[in-house]
């Protein structure tokens, strides 16, 4: 994506801005659907963490793979997904990316290399590492990025696959989105020692980066993706970020585990979209007006997609037994 389209930095910058806005807008609409009882089940908002997904995914091509998490809308949008199919999936409609079978927590977009969100915390660490093994074995040069949260570092699976990735020099990048919390618990209470050092102990080069700064993230990602493609992987990145909403849309009263002040500081001082927009304006790359047009267009897009999805049909009942098993090739 990024690589193919890059002509000037301006284009890249505006695209990153747009992609971040698209994520935020998608989430605002999803939250609204929940609040108005139009969405089945719960969902986890990515708002606040946009620079992470966008900074990394803009360094990837469509052939590169990602695995995502329960908080997966951001990764999905950043990897190139379309609003309509995403909203249809969130509403369980037949035109959704997974024909309504996956929903928010299992949204996947095969066409852009998104191997899917996962409702098992840490559950996709093996999958991402396996995708990297597959690429290497089949002689392709794609890279796999494994997104996961700080909470997921408590899953033993991570250490198992980092060991193998390091032993076999696999083109995989572990992207730890450290947003300070796993559910209702602060990271310090569930993670001893140092997350970066854990990766380093397996001989994996590890970096920490400000996850609210899309350019810093993208810069690092570009370098590591290129090196991973070149056989220098695996790598580990810890991205310091913050989730604006509760753990899920229903987590409204959060005082018992984090303060309003803390939320306010992140939202007002460290917002990745606002800050990047201000920088774009300051550098004369885009005027405040141009940025507003981008935001308005995206808002209109999202609203149209929501309306479309609300009207779209559910899959017919007969599909319930479809896709349990894939068909086999005729002999």
């Amino acid at each position, binding site marked *: 994506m990024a690589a193919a389209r890059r002509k000037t930095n301006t284009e890249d910058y505006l695209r990153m801005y747009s992609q971040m806005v698209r994520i935020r807008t998608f989430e605002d609409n999803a939250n609204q659907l929940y609040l108005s009882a139009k969405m089945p*089940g719960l969902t986890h908002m990515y708002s606040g963490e946009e620079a992470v997904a966008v900074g990394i995914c803009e360094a990837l091509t469509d052939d590169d793979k990602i695995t995502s998490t329960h908080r997966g809308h951001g990764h999905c949008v950043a990897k190139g997904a379309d609003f309509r199919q995403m909203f249809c999936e969130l509403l369980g409609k037949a035109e959704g990316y997974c024909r309504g079978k996956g929903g928010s927590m299992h949204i996947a977009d095969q066409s852009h290399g998104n191997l899917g969100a996962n409702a098992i915390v840490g559950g996709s660490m093996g999958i991402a590492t396996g995708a990297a093994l597959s690429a290497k074995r089949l002689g392709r040069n794609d890279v796999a990025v494994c997104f996961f949260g700080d909470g997921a570092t*408590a899953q033993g699976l991570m250490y198992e696959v980092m060991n193998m990735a390091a032993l076999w020099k696999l083109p995989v990048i572990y992207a730890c989105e450290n947003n300070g919390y796993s559910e209702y618990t602060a990271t310090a209470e569930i993670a001893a020692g140092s997350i970066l050092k854990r990766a380093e102990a397996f001989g994996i080069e590890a970096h920490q980066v400000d996850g609210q700064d899309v350019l810093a993230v993208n810069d690092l990602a570009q370098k590591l993706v290129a090196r991973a493609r070149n056989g220098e992987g695996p790598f580990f990145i810890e991205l310091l970020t913050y989730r604006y909403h509760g753990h899920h849309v229903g987590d409204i009263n959060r005082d018992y585990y984090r303060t309003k002040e803390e939320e306010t500081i992140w939202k007002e001082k460290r917002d990745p979209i606002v800050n990047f927009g201000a920088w774009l304006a300051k550098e004369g790359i885009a005027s405040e007006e141009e940025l507003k047009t981008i935001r308005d267009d995206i808002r209109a897009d999202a609203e149209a997609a929501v309306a479309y999805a609300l009207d779209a049909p559910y899959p017919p009942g007969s599909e319930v037994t479809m896709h349990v098993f894939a068909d086999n090739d005729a002999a």
Partner: protein
Amino acid sequence: MREITLSKAVNEAIAEEMRRDPAIFLLGEDVAEAGTPFKVLSGLVEEFGPERVIDTPISEPGFMGMAVGAAMTGSRPIVDLMFGDFIFLIMDQLCNQAAKTHYMSGGKLKVPLVLRTNLGATRRSAAQHSQSLHALVAHIPGLKVALPSSAYEAKGLMKTAIRDNNPVVIFEDKLMYNDKAPVPEEEYLIPFGEAAVLREGRDVTIVATSSMVQVSLKAAEMLAADGISAEVIDPRTIVPLDEETILESVRKTSRAIVVDEGHQSFGVTAEIASRISEKAFYHLDAPVIRMGAMDVPVPFSPALEDLTVPTPDGVAEAARRIVRGETRDAA
């Protein structure tokens, strides 16, 4: 009698037992201040402190293993597993360790622990948060399995589980946490291996577990309007299983339906149906009808999900057919 929610009933059971025995402690994700996502354990950390109500990292195999070690050395841990689907993560510690230690040590070591978790679909939570996996646990010798179907049972079975000297797995029905039922103020225990006849009847025996008990009672209600008298039996524990109560009923009604929310194939319905067929064969007018969940991963879309689980209509219809003798043709 006062009515309380299932949630409150579980909370009371644990609190009462913790007051009685200082060797009991709780271990799990967000069990302390958050009181679990379902708020079942709210207030316990305030009473018993963080030394006995312990928030863990997202390390299910790890804390399950620790519970086994603690149980072997004088503690009586209660493990909280947030979703029944995560039982796949702890199978080794549960089935290779906890279940076998007493036997492998020739009776020297004991593993008195309770694993509390849940089951049940139709919450729009998709394939990794909707499974009913109690059949897997029941297949492994050394584990007891309790399936409460009301606040009353939840409290009485939990207290019995906590006092049991063996590993006990309790599956609660997620949809039932807010359902109220009469629960005595006075202490009571429900012994394992004693089924409850929740409704007496002459024409057909419906053996139903957990979430399917209410479904079957509703079906029985509908059937009564048609002049069909259904007996509804809740085994309450499937290991140990109270065969006698079930057989006695079937010998009386000559017809049996077994309803359970686990997948039908290789599941609980097969075992119970087999025992009925083996031991009441000549009393049966028609083959035992099994009604489990469909053999498909649980789909997200409401349009599909609701098709996968037995409903009151479905159970009533099956009962009508067996009473009318219509199920003979197939066999």
